[in-house]
């Protein structure tokens, strides 16, 4: 097997497609001309006949090609290249023959080709469903393998996370202990810090920009917020590592405390900054959706601007704002690079923001990078964590999107 993917066969398929198009076009063009001479108008134009023939030929060719490729990889003895080649030319030629026979004035080629195109487009939209199913299937499959070694109970309620070393001989999983509570706690701590930053700041940025800021301020601040949204997370992670972490340590030292460079606070703060654009743009949408008539009603009753904003706009937009916060939480929980680089890997069970903590995503990265044997409890644990991460973020997203949508309907 010299050529892993025979390119020349693709060329043959291309030639067959072109040939089918030309032949069908030629046949159809003849009666199209007759039609001008007074016969009944054909039900489709030559190019529709031609396209149909070409698509049929192409589909047949590609099918033969893929089947051959698969068979050759798994059963090389059964299928020789000669047989493959013969099928590759033969089947499409047969199809072309049938297609050409169908090229008649009363054949509605356009309707056929359009039905095929529509089916093709529908299949494309199913890619999303297939992806989701793929995610669920792969996570559940690998996690099930993991839970054969480690009990679900230990995983969810165990307070000791140490995938590398066995505490005692013969321990479940043999290569370590997998009590994920410290991991969940670290995730929660960092998410809380991030939301404490991004929630109020993002909301106030949205309010100030839409209600108070001058055109000039807006012209400067809006692009700045958009830049924050466009910066890759690995950059935020590096920023936390070289600037924010050391700064926190210095400040703490000046106040006489000893704080590691990698801390929940550094990661949480930077993650909060990263999420500000998300919160502010979602909040901006919902705040704008509050009708002007409500604001006018409040203003006419003698409310100041902030009173109107807090008591009417805010209150009306509350479901939308809650939805925005839920999406922010989901983003924070799933964020990886910042925590990998700035939060540390020690699985401390701690509520102190100055401690180094670890998160679900950090552990997934730690367990899966570097050389390791697949199917060991270590690597499978990553999929169990991934499953938890997927379920939690999915629930948050579903609730958030539902809340936001219901809110949108209310004002329309």
């Amino acid at each position, binding site marked *: 097997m010299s050529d892993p993917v025979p390119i020349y066969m693709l060329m043959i398929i291309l030639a067959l497609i072109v040939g089918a198009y030309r032949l069908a076009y030629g046949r159809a063009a003849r009666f199209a001309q007759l039609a001008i001479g007074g016969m009944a108008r054909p039900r489709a134009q030559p190019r529709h006949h031609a396209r149909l023939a070409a698509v049929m030929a192409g589909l047949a060719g590609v099918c033969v090609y893929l089947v051959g490729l698969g068979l050759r990889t798994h059963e090389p003895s059964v299928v020789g290249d000669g047989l493959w080649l013969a099928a590759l030319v033969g089947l499409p030629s047969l199809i072309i023959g049938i297609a050409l026979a169908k090229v008649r004035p009363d054949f509605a080629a356009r309707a056929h080709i359009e039905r095929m195109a529509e089916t093709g487009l529908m299949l494309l939209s199913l890619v999303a469903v297939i992806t989701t199913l793929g995610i669920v299937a792969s996570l559940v499959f690998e996690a099930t393998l993991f839970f054969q070694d480690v009990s679900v109970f230990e995983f969810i309620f165990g307070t000791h996370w140490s995938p590398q070393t066995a505490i005692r001989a013969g321990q479940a999983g043999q290569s370590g202990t997998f009590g994920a509570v410290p991991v969940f706690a670290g995730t929660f701590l960092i998410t809380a810090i991030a939301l404490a930053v991004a929630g109020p700041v993002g909301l106030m940025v949205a309010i100030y920009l839409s209600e108070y800021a001058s055109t000039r301020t807006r012209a400067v601040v809006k692009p700045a917020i958009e830049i924050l949204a466009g910066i890759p997370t690995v950059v935020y992670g590096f920023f936390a590592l070289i600037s924010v972490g050391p700064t926190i340590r210095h400040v703490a030292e000046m106040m006489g405390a000893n704080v590691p460079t990698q801390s929940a606070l550094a990661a949480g703060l930077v993650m909060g900054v990263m999420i500000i654009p998300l919160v502010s743009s979602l909040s901006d949408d919902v705040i704008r959706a509050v*009708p002007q*008539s*409500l604001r*006018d*009603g*409040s*203003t*006419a*009753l*003698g*409310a*100041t601007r902030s*009173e109107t904003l807090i*008591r*009417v706009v805010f*209150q*009306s937009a509350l479901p939308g704002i809650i939805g925005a916060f839920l999406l922010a939480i989901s983003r924070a929980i799933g964020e990886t690079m910042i925590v990998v680089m700035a939060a540390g890997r020690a699985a401390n069970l701690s509520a102190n923001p100055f401690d180094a903590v670890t998160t679900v995503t950090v552990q997934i990265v730690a367990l899966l990078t570097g050389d390791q044997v697949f199917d060991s409890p270590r690597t499978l644990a990553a999929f169990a964590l991934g499953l938890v991460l997927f379920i939690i973020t999915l629930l948050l997203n579903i609730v958030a999107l539902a809340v936001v949508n219901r809110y949108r309907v*209310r004002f329309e």
Partner: protein
Amino acid sequence: MTDKPSSDRPKFTCRDVSVRYDGFSALSGIDIDISDRSVTALIGPSGCGKSTLLRVFNRMNDTIANARVSGTVLMDDIDIYGPDIDPVLLRARVGMVFQKPAPFPRSVYDNVAYGPRLHGLSRSRADLDGQVEKSLRRAGLWEEVKDRLKMPAPGLSVGQQQRLVLARALAIDPEVILMDEPASSLDPIATARLEALIEELKTRYCIIIVTHSMAQAARISDKTAFLHNGALIEFDQTENMFTNPTDTRTQDYITGRFG
């Protein structure tokens, strides 16, 4: 405050009032005196500036960016555009009802209590309850909603909503009520109720109403002002205006030749 004896001096005195938006002149050189305890109607074709003039009296134009108001507007001889006037305080004395009723998405009670809570008008819960009831009674809504004060206000009918926002405005104990085409989204029955209410309220308040219905202006107002292209064309007793207009444009408008 509403019980003080009425005097002959006008509630509002406007001298040479102009409003410009971004170089576009919405109102120019308006001189008008509005009497207390009466209904003044502002009429005119769309875009004539009648709503802009209405918004001059409670400085709602301030909330529109780029709107500039010039001239003098006196309320009880006090310049309401003076440097030491806080529009928030002014609006606590000049209530307003808009074209489309926009109750806040909360309970009926909370809607009415919004103003008193804002301005700290009640000393106790019972006090607030009393104010809410009084306002709802004055707006003629009490009997309909007294058993469902806690229900969300957007669930009321449009006619009820419009009386609710009127009650909301009355609850801050204003001296003036501005109405911007209050009946335009109401059916004839609800409109009749509202008009009867206005008739009742004018014994206590100075009412200024913008309307596009000349019949309505004729029915409910004591004096009528006709505006056209941002200028005050004619201002007179309603009876005189509709029977014997002096300006041909007024005549054309009220006879339905334009507008």
